[in-house]
């Protein structure tokens, strides 16, 4: 690391000779030692999941939620410095509200991602602030139907397309991930935090880009991936939290909600089972190699 001792890594917004902002890179380190969080975009919705490391047995089980709702149709999960994550969520909720005040319609997922990306990027421009110590995954379902404008009275004109292009499809599920630098991309599957490598490997195995998987499958896959990602730091106990969003005719009726307890427990049972099966396969493989020597 050419940074330490050169003095270029001491304050924010300073470029090192090779063009890097080390404070942002150090912020990414803070993200990496947080619990794993993932998002999966399926064809009829989005699933978010997070591995909440249980820091003390005295914590009240199920009380400390990490996945937050922004507006009603958007979910945010994050890894890294949790107070930074809460500040991120507060700001996201303000952005969603100001959008509604101006346009009288819910904010789209891409617009929220863009605004939050700007907010994080702004924290890399000045020495008076430090970058955010989180990477956030934003999942949402933008309305496909023509929603009545908030507070609308009467049903409006009955003729004409109302400015909509009839053959263009609007809305649908969206997934974005925003890094401390403010950089964000759209994803089919996103993962961050300690177990992100293992999680990414598992996500790539799923057929997310082609025909896509259903919401129910995604809930089961998400649980399994979190268990796999958690696998290496086996000692620490963890609590799985999952949320999902579907279209208006789907199970959550367009709202971002926590996955019901029964469904989550079922998904966890399958995840543990598939984890044990894959352990047995490794034993057989090892014995196989021994036999060959």
């Amino acid at each position, binding site marked *: 690391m050419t940074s330490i001792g050169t003095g270029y890594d001491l304050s924010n917004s300073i470029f090192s000779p090779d063009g890097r902002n080390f404070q942002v890179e150090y912020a990414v380190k803070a993200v990496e030692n947080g619990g794993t969080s993932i998002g999966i975009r399926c064809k009829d919705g989005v699933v978010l999941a997070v591995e909440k490391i249980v820091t003390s047995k005295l914590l009240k089980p199920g009380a400390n939620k990490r996945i*937050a709702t922004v507006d009603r149709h958007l979910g945010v999960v994050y890894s890294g410095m949790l107070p930074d994550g809460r500040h991120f969520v507060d700001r996201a909720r303000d952005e969603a*509200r100001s959008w509604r005040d101006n346009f009288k319609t819910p904010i789209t997922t891409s617009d929220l991602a863009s605004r939050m990306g700007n907010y994080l990027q702004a924290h890399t421009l000045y020495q008076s602030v430090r970058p955010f110590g989180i990477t956030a995954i934003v999942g949402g379902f933008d309305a496909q139907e023509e929603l009545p404008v908030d*507070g609308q009275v*009467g049903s409006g004109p009955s003729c004409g397309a109302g400015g909509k292009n009839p053959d263009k499809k609007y809305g649908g599920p969206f997934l974005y991930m925003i890094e401390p630098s403010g950089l964000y991309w759209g994803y089919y599957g996103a993962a961050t935090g300690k177990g992100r490598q293992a999680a990414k490997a598992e996500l790539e195995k799923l057929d997310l880009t082609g025909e896509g998987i259903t919401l129910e499958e995604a809930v089961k896959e998400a649980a399994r991936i979190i268990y796999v990602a958690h696998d290496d730091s086996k000692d620490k106990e963890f609590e799985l939290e999952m949320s999902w969003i579907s279209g208006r005719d789907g199970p959550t009726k367009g709202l971002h909600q926590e996955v019901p307890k029964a469904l989550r427990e079922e998904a966890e049972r399958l995840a543990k089972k598939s984890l044990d099966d894959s352990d047995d396969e490794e034993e057989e493989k090892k014995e196989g190699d021994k036999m060959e020597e």
Partner: protein
Amino acid sequence: MDHRPQAWGRPRDDVYGAYDASYLNNSGPRTVTQSPVVTGTSVIAIKYKDGVVMAADNLASYGSLARFTDVKRLRTFLDTTVIGFGGDVSDMQFLDRHLKELATDESYEVEPTLDDEDDEESSSSKPGHLNAANLFKYLQKLMYQRRNSFDPLWNQILVAGLDSDSKPFLASVDLRGTSFTSPSLATGFGAALAQPIMRKYAGTEEDAAKLTREQAVEVVKECMKVLFYRDARSLDRYSIAVVNKDGIELKEDEQLEKQSWAFAERIKGYGTQTV
């Protein structure tokens, strides 16, 4: 040809005459609208044994013109509270949007209940969520604050639901922030026409607690009919809501029935008689 920018995109003065800007108020203090434009008429409500029945017609009048006939003047909040708006419709829309944002904030506080297994939570008293009494206090402060800044929300609002002890709650607040509660309430014309009728059935809290749901709905429908007879800014299509601990049943397109205009014959000047 006058190429100066002020002339761009404007009808020519030499053809149409100089522009009359007298209606603009470019001197004097910034003023806000202080009179109702599109208005809704009475909202009436009555308590009964397990909850509250509320009704309001679907008319929005523009002065004496029956301008909009499908305006929903009963709005719901978090399916625990029904809010009825009399007075200015644009202020109603603003308040409805504002309450929707308040409901969104409420949905952020996802409260794990005491214990998942031991008690079913009725919708009206979901722990942590604002009930009707809480929402009423909020609205009362909002209306009073707007009155203090001489920029009032020109409404009289009825709020119905359950209070913190899960008992029926009904209260009213108006554009000045004046608020009060009573076993039955009515705004506008309803205060003069409907209240005397409703008070026969729900004069005191004890009387109201004896009313069944059917009786309460019947009384409210009777009053809506009387109001249609006598209030010149009323309509025969209305919305009616029943709220109790199981939530809200809202019907937004009821037709007034059992009308009988026989009494009109006796009114001098009606139709052809000259007596």
